[in-house]
């Protein structure tokens, strides 16, 4: 089953009420809904609010009790410290390289492979689709051990290449499985008519099916990017030098210090890491598709 995350999805239409008791009942119902919604939004949204607000507080306000809710003094010092005291821009660039490369790799390879998974059924192609889903479910912590051995043996320790390849182990199965079901939803009759008009299968795929599959590729791209942007274990095990650290690892080394002065800087970093993800999400929000029977959306 496929669910679209769409704001305009039809909600339950409220039938018109006539009698007065119904009106009172209806009003009470409304008030309840708003109260619940307000509570939920406040509780769930608070940590994000707190992160953003605190990132603009000067050190003196970050470490006082009782805390100030809105900063008495707004400052960008935390953001400046982040760039001066840590290699934040290096981490950011590394994350960008790793996430973009593994996403591109799985979109091209997976996007093509999924077409054949969807359209052909000879030679056990169907069972390969299930194998892909199974690969997607292999725990990272199982795979990291052998990959570590290969990385050492191939001399890829402490390189971004190792991270790109390792991330692809998870983003590629996702792309294969997800895009297969996406192609499945594109009617074959479209390709047939193109082929009647003299296209080859390859031509029909290139000119007809692929353009229609773009929204699916966008969704997969977002999930892959998000996955690689988030990935921590491979980075922790495969890389160590400052110049090769990605964002989560780079910031994690600063938590380790847990000195009382770094919180403002870390929260500023947290805000900056979140921005690209949120921008991406807003960009494709309406096209985002969560396929549950497809193994679900992975954002972790």
């Amino acid at each position, binding site marked *: *089953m*496929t*669910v*679209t*995350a769409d704001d305009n999805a039809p*909600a339950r*239409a409220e039938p018109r009420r006539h009698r007065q008791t119904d009106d009172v009942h209806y009003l009470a119902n409304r008030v309840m809904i708003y109260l*619940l919604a307000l509570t*939920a*939004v406040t509780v*769930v949204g608070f*940590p*994000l609010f*707190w992160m953003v607000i605190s990132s603009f507080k000067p050190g003196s306000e*970050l470490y006082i*009790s009782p805390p100030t809710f809105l900063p008495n003094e707004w400052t960008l010092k935390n953001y400046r410290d982040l760039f001066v005291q840590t290699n934040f821009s290096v981490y950011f660039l590394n994350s960008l390289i790793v996430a973009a490369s593994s996403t591109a790799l799985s979109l091209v*390879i*997976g996007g*093509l*492979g999924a077409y*054949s998974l969807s*359209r*052909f059924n000879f*030679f056990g192609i169907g069972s*390969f689709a299930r194998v*892909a889903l199974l*690969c997607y479910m292999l*725990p*990272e*912590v*199982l*795979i990291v*051990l*052998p990959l*570590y*051995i290969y990385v050492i*043996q191939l001399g890829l320790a402490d390189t971004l290449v190792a991270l790109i390849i390792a991330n692809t*182990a998870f983003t*590629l*199965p996702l792309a294969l499985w997800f895009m297969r079901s996406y192609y499945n939803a594109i009617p*074959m009759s479209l390709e*047939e008519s193109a*082929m*009647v008009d003299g296209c080859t299968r390859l031509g029909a795929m290139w000119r007809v099916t692929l353009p229609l599959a773009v929204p699916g590729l966008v969704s997969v791209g977002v999930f892959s990017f998000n996955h690689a942007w*988030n990935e*921590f*274990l491979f980075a922790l095990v495969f890389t160590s030098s400052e110049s090769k650290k990605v964002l989560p690892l780079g910031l994690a080394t600063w*938590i380790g210090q847990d000195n009382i002065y770094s919180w403002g800087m870390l*929260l500023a*970093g947290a805000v900056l890491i979140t921005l690209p*993800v*949120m921008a991406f999400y807003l960009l494709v929000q309406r096209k985002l598709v969560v396929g*549950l*029977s497809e*193994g*679900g*959306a*992975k*954002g*972790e």
Partner: protein
Amino acid sequence: MPDARTVQPGDRTLAYITLAPSVALLLLLSAVPTITVLATAMQDVGLGSLSGPWVGLDNFVWALNYDAFWRALWNTFYWVFGSVAVEMVLGLGIALLLHQNFAMRGIARAILLAPYLIPTIVAVLVWRYMFHDIVGILNYFLMNLGLIERPLQWLGSTRWAMVSVIIVGVWKFFPFVVLALLGILQSIPQEQYEAARIDGASAFQQFWRITLPYILPVFILTALLRTIWTFHKFEIIYLLTGGGPLDVTTTLPILVYQKGFVDFELGRAAAIAILTFVILAALIAVYFMLMRRAESKQ
């Protein structure tokens, strides 16, 4: 006349060319590593080396006699069932709420789903700041409400560490449940509710007799998927507590990491990883079975 449904000449070539890179990569990145990890688990790998003499099942026997393994298994169950149970209840509640029509629903939805999209490191940073025993906002709230008298140590206390980790996990991952359930809620045929209302069924009866049975298969599938993912979650716990204090938040994935990359005993780490996967595989098998059943019903 060409027919896209039958195999055309050239189709096989096309299939091979398009699939070959995927097959090769998955073989190299999933199948071969799985064999390697099995092989590693049967070797006595010394400190700092990558392989060693064959010892058969010794590492597995060692793991099964290793107290920390059983404690990690218990911690894993605590972490998984604690998280998934709360996520499912909360996710269902929020999904039902967002299924109602109300002003600014779009904004509420965006905020309620946001934790799922933010990177784990971000969730960890902000929660660690909020959990801080002296300047953390959480203790301030709870003390002002009179719920606690002295600041809690949260991540630092053996009593509250796992609860704290679960709080962060639930906050981060419950939106997945909301997304999944919102989709199925929107597909319930409205006529069923109309009919029930005419029969005078209360809102609760409508939920119990129509909504719940309809969404149940998806609910179960979602719970199982969350269970599988939560089971092998590593970074959120590692970054919050590192497995401590003592080993109260050391789940199986954390234990594998510690054995493999702190103690550098790859063979033993591999044995624990495989035992972990065996438990997980049972869950995955159930997931596939339920999924197939759900698909055949459609």
